[in-house]
């Protein structure tokens, strides 16, 4: 186990939250998107995080810890149907398929991701501070 393990773990947290923030921003940007490559409205996306810790590793194996992003998936809930008869993407009954995104939910998630990012930065700075303090013993 490297002395830099704590810093690397924090870095993995930063990467994950950064990607989560990107995804949330993408959801907000596409809140009114009615057309996508797969056809139909934009679907809200969520990031899936997984822990990197290997349970009961063999003695010679290094235990990497931290978080990794396993994928960015569509949230499975159905799209919202808005009645907009004049819209180019309206169906025969005048309903347009709209993304299932609530701005308020995305804003709350954004705050959560930001705070998590800041917390990881603090953990990182603390770890680095400890190493630098250890070095100053010799001076």
């Amino acid at each position: 186990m490297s002395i830099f393990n704590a810093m690397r773990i924090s870095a993995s947290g930063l990467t994950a939250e950064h990607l989560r923030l990107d995804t949330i921003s993408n959801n907000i940007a596409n809140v009114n998107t009615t057309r996508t490559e797969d056809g139909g409205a934009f679907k809200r996306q969520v990031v899936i995080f997984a822990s990197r810790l290997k349970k009961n590793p063999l003695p010679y194996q290094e235990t990497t810890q931290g978080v990794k992003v396993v994928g960015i998936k569509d949230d499975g809930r159905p799209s919202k149907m808005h009645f907009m008869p004049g819209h180019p993407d309206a169906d025969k009954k005048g309903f347009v398929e709209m993304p299932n995104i609530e701005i308020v939910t995305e804003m709350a998630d954004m705050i959560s991701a930001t705070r998590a990012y800041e917390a990881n930065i603090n953990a990182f700075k603390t770890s680095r501070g400890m190493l630098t303090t250890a070095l100053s013993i010799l001076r």
Partner: protein
Amino acid sequence: MFVLGKELNSDLMFVVKKHLDGNVKAQKVAADNIANVNTPGFKASEVHFKDALKNVINQDRLSLAKTHSGHIPAINSSRNSFQPIVIQKNEQSFRIDGNNVDMDKEMEKMAESSVEFEAMTEVIRDMHKKLSSVIMGR
């Protein structure tokens, strides 16, 4: 002078010097990666030197042992040409522009390099202090 030469060219000094070279290179490469965080198609690079450095030292230890005072030592003169290796990482990323730079990871690498650099300079400072007190007599 002979004693000084032995100290300044010892295995320890060799490792410290080459380690410093590696750390400087690693920091440069991390800075380069960060500078290119928005370049489409850019692939991040990383620096490897620690395992190779370990092998060089181990090889020297396993080389010809002198069992007789007349034996000529086999000095591994190629050890001074040891260089850190820069490898490009071709992993995929979630970005559509083909760029795979992870800003947070590069910052962490820079922090690692700077802490290791400081540690190595502490070793050198310590050695100089010892030599200096021997030379000055206090």
